[in-house]
Every structure is written in structure tokens, then in C-alpha cells.
């Protein structure tokens, strides 16, 4: 982009006056375009990240003076039963949420046809993603109700006494993850439907000539072409799993006895607790969550960087 922006292009007296700006317009312009957004983003997103890490070294109730306690909050975390419960639950979220990727692919394959009305079917299958997680949480809370939820009806139909899923320490997290999978599968499905749309018909034909069918075709011909869709699906699912907050807040509030807590909710609960704010300790939890996320963010950025160069 070697543009000689000398004032020779458009001669005139008024240009001579602002010639420094004129000469440097290509260099200045991006900063002028960037300034409002960048400043805004810096104040509300970038700076708070570092502030949070900084606050995590203090004891602070949000009102009084901050008191420097070094790694005190982190030391406390090491002995915090609830922190470990949250961490383990986060691991379950990460693992089980991944089921959304193959499930989304399966539904996409099922719907990738051209029969009449299929477009409407596709949009209706996508429906759950558009709805707020608050609503999803309420629906499933009600489903899980042993007295009048669908779980109660199904269990009683088989003559068993229904479990109170959301009140059971061993089941509660899985119940919430199951609710979360519903919209997440819809999201992955739409990614794969778009991906399938762009699968090259020539390669599919070539595969058919080579006698590739069914699973073999899927594995060796289709899936490699769906790689970008898979990548995005995995990224959004990981982010979704680590961000899980709404469902837990609506369905259990982290209970019973903190057994369905995840880091995102535990942090919120600690920092804005009814028993007094613990900004410092909350920030320490947030920092741990941030570091976990950073692994994925770095991976994503590294992939993007390869793309940018390539």
C-alpha cells in the first residue's frame, strides 16, 4: 500500500495549511477511526481485567479501605471446599457440554435434506438457542419437579418414585448441564448445517465413485471439510461451559449446599454475598477462572494468527 500522499495530488492553498495532516493522513486515519471504540473497550474490558487481578491481592468489602494481603486470598482458596466443588463441576461442564458438538452434527445430518418445509423445520430446531437461558432454566426446573414435572410422570409411569434431581447433591449438576445442552446443541446444529451447505459436491461424488458410504464417507470425506465448523462449535461450547451462570442462578442458586456451584457462580456469590461483599476473594476466584479461559483464548488466537499469516 505504497500511497504517496504528497500534496501534489490536489494542489491548493488550503492544503498547504494542513499539509502535515494531509501528508500523514494514511497513518493517522486508523487511529482516528479506532479511538472511540478503543478507549471505550479499554475502560470497560481491558483495564478491569488487570484491576481484578490487582484486587485479588487485597481484602476488600467494596466500601472501606483495601487491605493488602498478598496471596492471602489464594492461600484461602486452597483450603476452600466450595472452591474445589466448583472446580470439579466446571470440569464436568466442560466434558459433558462437548456432547453438544456431535449431537449438533447428528441433527444437522438428519435435517440436511431438501424435502418440502425443511427450512421451517431447520429454524424450529434452532429455536431453543434464541430463548433466554433464564427461560430455559425455568422450564427445566419445572420439568424436574418430582411432584408435577415430566420427570415425576415418567418415573411414576414405570412405577418408580421420582428423584428430586435439583435437590440431590449427586444429580443436580448433571440436571443443569442437561438443560444447558438443549440450546447449545441447537447452536452447534446451525454451525454444521451451514458447513454442510458448503461441502463440495464434487468430492462427495468422487467419494461415492470410490465406494465410500455412510460412516466412511462421513469420516474421510465430509468431516475434514467440516473442520472450520467443528472448530467454531468447540470454541463456543467451551466458552459456554465456562460461562455457565444463568442456569445455575435460576435453577439452584448453587445449591443444595453449594453442590451445583461453578466458578462463575461461586465468584458472584462470594463477591456480592448477603453476608457482606468479599471483592478480594471473589476477584481471586475470577482470576482462576480467567486463567483457565486464557488457555482456550490463547489457542484460539494462535489459530487465528496462523490463518492471518497463511
Amino acid at each position, binding site marked *: 500500500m505504497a500511497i504517496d500522499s504528497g500534496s501534489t495530488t490536489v494542489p491548493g492553498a488550503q492544503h498547504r495549511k494542513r499539509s502535515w495532516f494531509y501528508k500523514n*493522513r494514511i497513518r493517522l486515519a*486508523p487511529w482516528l*477511526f*479506532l479511538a*472511540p471504540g*478503543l478507549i471505550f*473497550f479499554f475502560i*470497560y*474490558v481491558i483495564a*478491569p*481485567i488487570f*484491576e481484578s487481578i490487582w484486587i485479588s491481592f487485597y481484602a476488600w468489602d*467494596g466500601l472501606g479501605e483495601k487491605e493488602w494481603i498478598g496471596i492471602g486470598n489464594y492461600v484461602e482458596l486452597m483450603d476452600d471446599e466450595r472452591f474445589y466443588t466448583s472446580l470439579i463441576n466446571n470440569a464436568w461442564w466442560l466434558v459433558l457440554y462437548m456432547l453438544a458438538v456431535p449431537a449438533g452434527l447428528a441433527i444437522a*445430518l438428519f435435517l*440436511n435434506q*431438501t*424435502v418440502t418445509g425443511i427450512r421451517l423445520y431447520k*429454524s*424450529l430446531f434452532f*429455536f431453543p438457542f434464541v*430463548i*433466554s437461558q*433464564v*427461560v*430455559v432454566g*425455568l*422450564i427445566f426446573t*419445572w*420439568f424436574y419437579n418430582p411432584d*408435577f414435572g*415430566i420427570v415425576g410422570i415418567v418415573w411414576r409411569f414405570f412405577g418408580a418414585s421420582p428423584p428430586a434431581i435439583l435437590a440431590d447433591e449427586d444429580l443436580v449438576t448433571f440436571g443443569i448441564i442437561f438443560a444447558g445442552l*438443549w440450546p447449545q446443541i441447537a447452536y452447534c446444529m*446451525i*454451525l454444521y448445517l*451451514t*458447513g*454442510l451447505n458448503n*461441502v463440495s459436491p464434487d468430492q*462427495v461424488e468422487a467419494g461415492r465413485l470410490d465406494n465410500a458410504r455412510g460412516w466412511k464417507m*462421513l469420516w474421510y470425506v465430509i468431516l475434514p471439510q467440516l473442520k*472450520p*465448523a467443528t472448530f467454531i462449535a468447540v470454541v463456543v461450547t467451551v466458552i459456554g461451559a*465456562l*460461562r455457565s*451462570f*444463568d442456569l445455575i*442462578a*435460576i435453577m439452584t442458586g448453587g445449591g443444595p449446599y453449594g453442590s451445583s456451584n461453578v466458578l*462463575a457462580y461461586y465468584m*458472584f456469590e462470594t463477591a456480592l454475598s448477603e453476608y457482606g461483599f468479599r*471483592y478480594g476473594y*471473589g*476477584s481471586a476466584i475470577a*482470576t482462576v477462572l*480467567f486463567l483457565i479461559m486464557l488457555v482456550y*483464548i490463547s489457542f*484460539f*488466537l494462535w489459530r*487465528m*494468527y496462523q490463518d492471518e499469516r497463511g
Partner: protein
Amino acid sequence: MFPKPIENSAAGVRIGYQIILPIALFLWLLPLLAIFLTSIRPAADINAGNIFGMPSDFLLIENYLAVFQQSKAGVYLWNSVRITVPTVILAVSLSCLTGYALSVYRFKWAVPLFFVFVAGNFVPFQILMVPVRDLSVNTGLYDTVKGLVLFHSAFQLGFCTLFMRNFIKALPFELIESARIDGVSEFKIFWYLVLPLVKPAIAALSVLIFTFIWNDFFWATVLIQGDHALPITAGVRALNGQFVSQWQLVSAASLLAAIPPVLMFFAMQKHFIAGLTLGATKG
């Protein structure tokens, strides 16, 4: 096309597919169907244990009206509009500027700054929570619609910039180059040449951000306290406490909260999906 087009299959398979399709959809949307049926039931049905059967009476208007009469659902919905619409406008217009700057100019900072926006888009909300709340309290923006709008717009800039930058990058660069040679100023190039070309991206981003913000619950909980600024998502939770065991009203309120993004999705489906699946098709 994969899987094999069903119309080339035997008649049995074809008919089987046509039968399974609606059944699968029915099961998939069963939760929504159930909540809809509940929302038009009389309270007596629920007390009598008629939860999943046909309602004994259809109280579509009565129940939904009751939600508005007995709660502040109307205020909450209006708050959601007051939060969502300005956020969409602010975030999308600012990202047109940032996306343009990061795609058209090749300066040293273009890629690093782009990555800052992308990374910021992925951070967990909790790492921002304490400082953002503190900042809002100190600037008098806590518990105001304005405060929530400002934060949402700033945060959404990450995603919007990623989107816009990639979209503008895919435009033919020769257009801009030849305009420069003709002596068109940088701002005019942006305004008269690039902006009309990114209209589809603006549409896609707008519907996406609308849905994201409308459905936000976390920030509404952190930054808003009073009913005067509470959006419908957080409002529905409040209603849930208020309408204890009046499931027909809770269901109706939940569906009310879900309607605007659903309408948005159906009205702008093409743009919505194009936005959501950006990057899902190219290597």
C-alpha cells in the same frame, strides 16, 4: 450433498423420513410446547395435577393479562427495549469504525489490536465484575439504564469488531485503493464507499447483538437493583418468586420474555444465521 438426498431413496425411506421429521421436532420442542400449554391453563388444572394434558379451559388472554396486571412485567419489557436498542446502535456503529480501521490500514498495530478485541470478547464476565460495578457506583451509573447500555456496548465491541473487520477485509481492496488515487478523503471512502457495502454485516450484527443483550441476565443482576431499570430476564426471576406455584403466570411471563428475540430471529433469519455462522465455512 451429504447425506444422500432422500428423494433418491426408496419410497419407504422417503415416507419414513416424512413421518419421523415432525415427531422429532415435537420431542425437541416439547419443553416449549408444555410451557405454552401451561401458560394458557386455569390455575385449577395445575392444582388438580393436569399439567401435560389438554387444558380444561383456554385462558390465553386472561393469563397474559394477569401477568401485566399483577406484576411489573410491562415495565420490565420496556426496560429491556430501552437497554437493548441503544446498545445495538452504539456497539454496531462503533464497530464499523474499528472494523474499518483494522482491516483497511496495514499498520504495525493492526493485528495486535485486533487480537485484543477478540480476546476481550472471550473473557469470563466475572473477571470484569468487581471493577465494572465499582466504576459504575463511583460514576453514578449503577442501577441506571445508561450504565448498563454503556457497559454492554463496550463489551460487545469485541465481538462486533471481530465480525466487521473480517467482513470488510473480504471486500475488494482495489475499490478503496482506486478511490484514494482519485484523491477521495479517508472519511469519505469510509462513508460513501465502504459503509453501503457492509449493510448486510450491519443487519446481521444488529439481530445478533439484539438477541445477546435481550437475553443477558448476569449484567442485569450485577448492575441493576431497582424495578425502574430491571430488564425482563431479571424481571422474570423476580416474578418467579412473586408468583409462587402460580405456574401458569410464570410460564406466561417467560414466554413474553422470549417473544421479542424469537420474532427478531424469524424476521431476520437469513442475517441471523449468516452472522452466527461466520467463520464456520472458511478455513
